[in-house]
């Protein structure tokens, strides 16, 4: 199936692409993930970072880039595995690129760790590419199986540092501009002080503001923000 033949919503979400990823200090991490997405010989990558630092964005962007390059890609959050996690993990594989998110969900669960260890070995033997993501580096995750820790540690380590407020403002301003919304410094400062400051929630909020300002035919000002957010 060529990617452009996919129905729109079935394509990888358009907002989670490499070109919408604001790298900031994370350029090297972005580069590692980009290589893994399209080059079967590139090292596997372990992305680590706090919640809302952009891990899922990178993994899905990698799947989108891989699909565009004719590779088969699958994104899966270990948090969403249904049924017995070990059995589910054992049944994975088959894609050229397998992006496994939220490894934290199985740490300390011996059977599931063992299944992931086996999946890793199979992937190595069958020359798939793996991308892993978790809140911390492998050795700090609290994984009980040393064999799994050492294998995950052999991946290129790609830490994601959270953006600082200045970088976040810049991204938000850019994204607002892309939607035709003008956000001045006062409005930005107001938003940062009162809302969740991770980019995911801010961008979702921006989409909402976009719709509401369009409907109300108003500019996005502090009084308007106050009205929309009900404060």
């Amino acid at each position, binding site marked *: *199936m*060529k990617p452009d*033949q*996919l*129905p729109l*919503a*079935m*394509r*990888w*979400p358009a907002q989670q692409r490499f070109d919408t990823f604001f790298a900031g200090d994370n*350029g*090297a991490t972005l*580069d*590692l993930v980009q*290589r893994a997405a399209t080059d*079967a*010989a590139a*090292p596997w990558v*372990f992305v680590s970072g706090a919640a809302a630092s952009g891990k899922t964005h990178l993994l*899905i962007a990698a*799947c989108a880039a891989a*699909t565009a390059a004719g590779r*088969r890609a*699958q*994104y*899966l*959050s270990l948090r*969403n*595995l*249904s049924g017995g996690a070990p*059995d*589910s*993990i*054992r*049944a*994975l*594989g*088959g*894609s050229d690129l397998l992006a496994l998110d939220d490894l934290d969900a199985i740490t300390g669960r011996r059977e599931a760790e*063992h299944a992931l260890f*086996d999946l890793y*070995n199979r992937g190595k*033997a*069958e*020359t798939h590419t793996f991308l892993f993501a978790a809140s911390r*580096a492998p*050795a*700090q995750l609290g994984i009980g199986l*040393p*064999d799994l*820790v*050492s*294998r995950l*540690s*052999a*991946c*290129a*380590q*790609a*830490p994601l540092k959270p953006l600082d407020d200045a970088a976040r403002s810049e991204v938000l301003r850019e994204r607002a501009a892309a939607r035709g919304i003008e956000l001045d410094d006062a409005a930005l400062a107001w938003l940062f002080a009162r809302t969740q400051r991770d980019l995911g929630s801010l961008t979702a909020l921006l989409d909402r503001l976009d719709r509401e300002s369009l409907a109300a035919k108003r500019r996005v000002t502090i009084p308007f923000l106050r009205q929309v957010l009900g404060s």
Partner: protein
Amino acid sequence: MTDLWRRCLERLEAEFSVEDLHTWLAPLQATEDAEGLRVLAPNAYTLDVVRERFQPRIAAVLQHLNGAPVTLRFDVGTLNRPTANPRKPAHNGASARVGRGGNESDSFESNLDPNYTFDLFVEGKSNQLGKAAAMQVANNPGRAYNPLLLYGGTGLGKTHLMHAAGNLMRTLNPATKVMYLRSEQFVTEMIQALRTKSMDDFKRRFRAVDALLIDDIQFFAGKDTTQEEFFHTFNALVESKQQLIMTCDRYPKEVDNLEPRLKSRLGWGLSVAIEPPDFETRAAIVLAKAQAKGVELPIEVAQLMAKRMRSNVRDLEGALNTLVARANFLGSTINTEFALETLRDLLTVHAQAITISNIQKTVADYYQLRLSDFLSMNRSRSLARPRQLAMALAKELTEHSLPEIGRGFGGRDHTTVMHACRTIRDLRATDGKLRQDWEKLLRVLTE
């Protein structure tokens, strides 16, 4: 992609969340034939989820679009998959590689990794015995040492040696049938064989090889039926002088939930410990891996990495991958300064709190001793041995001098520390339990 499937997806995209769509439906492929629509999933888990959660809707939508019910078949698989692999031959497990029935010798294709050879194995004090034994076995399969058991912690090169032996056997005699598999594959295939009532086939396949290499047999622990079957396979192979090479993460007698008679069999041939590599070997390994990647790595950088990362070779590999990727990205030359800067995060993890007092606390916890007793002058055996172990670890893991270490242990003399280091070194060679404690503590302290 068929037009019918595309229209079906278009309809479904309005009904499910974006996450469901791109996790479960986007990876599916479909073809249409006379019998209906065949939907392929990349793996069994996706197939299960799709069947359970989406099949009724898929069927209903297809029927609506088609004006009549559409026969749906679900499978694991891929359409138009190029068979050539860009990097190395695929290892799809033993069953995919060894012909069924009696014609194995005609078309035997090995599933060894060609990248693991003796030439590419970096030898040092910690692994030279293992390498020598593996080479002897490869030169004289079934006769030299049978079985050969390589044991030691994770990431020390056991799998490399095992493949290297298999590869050398096939270089010396290309007709040699060598089968490599991880213990997990043995378990999975046996369960499959039991389910499909094809145990005879299963037995025949494993017994028809000249050499069977089984990795990580500690994972047989607690799996009684597998152990039973492996026990018979083991006997059959050894009796007819077919070579068996195995790896284990510890001395098999120390694996819990392994049947006593299997444990004793495992000790029949030669068991060799693979120790964590010493500093020089670690540095040599980093240099060899860099060379294999075509990267020029200054010796000081290799030494820096070897000095800071001690637990196993995979950590070094990860660090090297990270370093090379960053240098490529930034267009930088790799020198000590650049390496220190890049690896700061990784190194912090490894250098994290390796101090004398941290070692004391970790060792005291490990043996469930009170820290105050541990540092006292009490010389009872139950305290003295752990104390000596802690001193030896302090010598191994910190930059402190022997007098400094002595002072850190309640004002002891440096000759006491020296004696402790020597005692522990000797005991590691003769006392399996102590060696295991040493390795575990090393791992805890360095990971």
